[in-house]
């Protein structure tokens, strides 16, 4: 089974201001992009469970001209709080690498 980590050329995460996290997925070609957008990366429910956020607040953007997908969601914990694990949100994309991508 192919995973998003197998398929994508770049996956990255970062803060988008102090209250949002944003994750970008870049695919190398049209065929990969078409497969990716049919997979759970574009499902707010999957993302909400993975990151323990409210699915209503998950934003998903498809960018076909760039062969990219962007997902954004509110930071589950205030930036810099005692619960902080990753100040710049730079490593939070990693669980997405295991997402299964159907044929």
């Amino acid at each position, binding site marked *: 089974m192919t995973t998003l980590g197998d398929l994508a050329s770049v996956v990255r995460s*970062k803060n988008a201001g*102090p209250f949002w996290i944003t994750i970008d997925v870049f695919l190398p070609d049209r065929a990969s992009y078409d497969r990716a957008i049919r997979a759970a990366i574009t499902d707010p429910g999957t993302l909400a469970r993975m990151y323990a956020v409210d699915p209503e*607040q998950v934003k998903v*953007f498809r960018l076909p001209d760039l062969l990219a997908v962007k997902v954004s969601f509110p930071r589950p914990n*205030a930036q810099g709080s*005692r619960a*902080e694990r990753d100040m710049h949100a730079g*490593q939070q994309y990693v669980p997405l690498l295991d997402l299964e991508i159907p044929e």
Partner: protein
Amino acid sequence: MNEIRVLVPVGMIGGGFPEATIDRGIELGADIIAVDGGSTDSGPHSLGTATPKTARAAVARDLRMILPAAHGAGIPVVIGTCGTSGTDAGVDWMYDIAKEIAAEHDLHLKVARIYSEQDASQLETFLDAGRIRPLAPAGPLDAATLRRCSHIVGLMGHEPLAAALDAGADVVLAGRATDTALTAVMPLMRGLPAGPVWHASKIAECGGLCTTKPVSGGVLVTFDKDGFVIEPLDPTAACTPTSVAAHMMYENADPFRMREPAGTLDASRANYTALDDRRVRVEGSRFERAEQPTIKLEGAARAGYQTILISGIRAPNVLARLDEWCDRVIDYLHINIDKTFGLARDDYDVQIRRYGHDAILGAAEPDRASPPREVGIVFIATAADQETATQLAKFANPLLLHAPLAGQEALPSFAFLGSPAETERGPIHEFVLQHAVDVQTSDELFRTVHSELGS
């Protein structure tokens, strides 16, 4: 021909750039140098304490490459969000550095300092007047939150910067400003269209990040009446339609729409064309003027004091039962902190982070199958004051050092990093404002001081 060229040498001052960057930009006809001085990305400490994140010598090194060259070419310099968080102290810090450089290089400079800190009681009157609105995902603001803040800043757009340049400033040192305002100010002053100006400013604000060689130096943006052209200053780097378009995604929750004080940029219908193998032209960006201009606020409030203890576990038999070990330590602490310190659960926090296991992803960590080979243990005690946090860390010390597991060695010893074992971290802060103020004019919340450096 009405064209304006803006040179952005680096994404944040202090980040460094090749020496040739400024000269090359000036050769290409730069009309202004714009650099960002900070961001919220590294967290609330800078705003909470009004101290900069960057090394002073690194910022001075970069400013030394900029100020004499700009002065020689007769072009102004704008630096925004001075001191990382744009506090009044941050502006003054940057001013001191500029003063030193002006003296070193015998420069006479007219400098405008634009202060952006807000007074909590003034904001309370706005709140009472219904002028403060929440931004997703925040709820309505209460006055107590304003009062808890150590520092509050308003994010200025281009208008106060334009007023300062109009008044003859050679150098504008601004407090908290939107990243884009610094690049946008001069083209907007010259009447160029808002859509392309704000779009280009969003792409250029990180310097070379929109090019094929992100660390090789900055960009030059040329604005005209129909759009803009962006190119890297490093002759061996390139801007491509993809590298430029993709940069709208960087650090933005929404890749198409971005709010500024005066309105919203809509880049969804922009088109990107390669003029050659390293320059890109962009047209088609739009700006929707807001009926009500707003100024976004940022505020940091203290959220306790912390003391940490760093240790390590390499013993395979303990690592095979790591969760159990950590739970025993924390459970013991919860029971005995109450007995020994008389603290209620709400008055303190103790936790253990396991580097090499799940410190970074926490509950989102997908791979817990195999025990790690080695784990870095970071114990964190948070309390209302530093002394209590440190006493809690000292109290936890023997447990973190010797806690056994049932059926194993009765008194193991784990690998503490140092002596003393605990390290005080000082106050921690949180960003507590995600709100905007309705304003009548976009500069009413900011104060400008004009002065001169050098003889």
